[in-house]
């Protein structure tokens, strides 16, 4: 691994992993505690429409994804809030429509769509310097918004109805939160791809939730876990010649399952101890 660091693409990959873990650690905490995993999955998958649009328009697919994903996040938010359509139905429909648009756009693009596979499943090894700058900028936007509106997002996430009664602008904040999820998706596309984004949005935060009941500490822990997973996954994929995005996701998921399994065993063991104090 150390000798691999002499290559620029490896250094860029490490840096990309770090930048991705900042966005997914912070925003992922809201996704997990507010239980909006499904709509986040919808936003992530719909971003494929933007990748296709980028190809068709001849601009960077990531840039295309950014505008398209922001628009679809707002669209999903408004449709689920303001129409009578059940929320999960609306999300499911828009999820598939976004992907379908991507397929049509790519079909309309003359010639071959290079790197399509890496947008779907991620390839952290091919992140260019411009990609890193974009990720850094999006991270900065996300961190700034969360610092400025920490109290507001906390009130939104904990109890929307009570929030409304004390004057929290819940709908506007919710739409802003969905936009931050959209930006996070864009940051993560290079690392794990459209299909696997939802794993990095949820796993580090879910793991962090096991260790603290403070939202701020949960964010810090989630960023740390995200960074460990992306470094560890990158190293494993390098050593064993595996797909980097999928390796990162499987490593994260395995650690989470092991952690849940361990705490389950421990609590059962404690129960047994309490049940038979004499022995």
């Amino acid at each position: 691994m150390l000798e691999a660091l002499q290559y620029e693409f490896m250094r860029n990959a490490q840096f990309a992993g770090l930048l991705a873990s900042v966005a997914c650690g912070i925003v992922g905490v809201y996704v997990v505690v507010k239980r909006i995993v499904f709509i986040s999955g919808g936003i992530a998958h719909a971003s494929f429409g933007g990748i296709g649009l980028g190809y068709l328009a001849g601009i960077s697919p990531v840039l295309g994804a950014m505008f398209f994903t922001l628009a679809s996040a707002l669209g999903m938010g408004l449709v689920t809030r303001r129409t009578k359509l059940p929320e999960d139905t609306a999300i499911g429909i828009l999820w598939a429509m976004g992907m379908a648009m991507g397929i049509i756009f790519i079909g309309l693009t003359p010639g071959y769509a290079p790197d399509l596979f890496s947008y779907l499943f991620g390839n952290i090894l091919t992140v260019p310097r411009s990609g890193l700058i974009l990720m850094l900028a999006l991270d900065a936007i996300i961190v700034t918004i969360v610092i400025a509106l920490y109290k507001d997002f906390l009130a939104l996430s904990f109890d929307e109805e009570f929030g409304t009664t004390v004057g929290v602008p819940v709908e506007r904040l919710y739409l802003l939160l969905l936009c931050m999820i959209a930006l996070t998706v864009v940051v993560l596309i290079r690392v794990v791809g459209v299909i696997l984004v939802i794993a990095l949005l949820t796993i580090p935060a879910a793991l962090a939730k096991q260790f603290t009941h403070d939202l701020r500490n949960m964010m810090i822990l989630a960023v740390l876990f995200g960074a460990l997973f992306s470094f560890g996954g990158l190293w494993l994929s390098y050593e064993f010649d595996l797909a980097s995005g999928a390796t990162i996701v499987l490593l994260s998921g395995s650690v989470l399952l092991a952690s849940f399994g361990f705490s389950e065993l421990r609590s059962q063991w404690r129960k047994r101890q309490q049940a038979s104090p004499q022995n």
Partner: protein
Amino acid sequence: MAHDEVVRLEDVWAHYDGVPVLEGVSLSVERDDFLGIIGPNGGGKTTLLKVILGLIKPSRGMVSVLGKTPERSRKNIGYVPQVNLFDPDFPISVWNVVLMGRYGRVGPLRWYGKKDRERAQRALQTVGMLDHKDRQIGKLSGGEQQRVFIARALVSEPRLLLLDEPTASVDPAMQTEFYELLEGLKQRMAIVLVSHDITAVSIYVDKIACLNGQLFYHGSKEIGVEVLEATYKCPVQMIAHGTVPHRVLMEH
């Protein structure tokens, strides 16, 4: 006197998907009232509170709180929703839950200040939960959570306190203590409490109304058995307040 009136409802109707939930409700709550509203589940009790808060727009009728629209008076309303509505696993401390009640006084983009922290401290002291301020809200018992939610409603120093089924998750042994807490608060604000549990409400409140779509409101301490029967559609206990609090049970 008009300026003593905290809540006024005139012929208020509210519907859910075309089904009427409130049918021509008129109500007046004054500054030092402690009003209990009882009625069966589905009788519109929560809807009535939400109309007073402005969370639900009535399809007909007039609502005014402190002489203004509910939205404009929200700052002066403390609201204690039914406890079971939040995620018990949510990573938040008692302290931060209570501070949330100050949101309306602070507004967006700023963190809570010194005054907010003092108010939160005082409110937690009032409900006897200051020692638990660093604990995760979901780890407390139902009764303790209820106290924290009352503290959250008190930090904004409201002139009207609305409580929705406050004893639902409080175990019977703690209920007396809970109502004594409200006794202390009623000197400072008008209180409206809704519950399906007649026995719990009857001893402590000053006025009782019965709600089952329509509101049977007498503005008095005695409540006739006909009214209760019309509300619950079955024979129920009769309630009368005298020098000694008591309930009269009817055979059924």
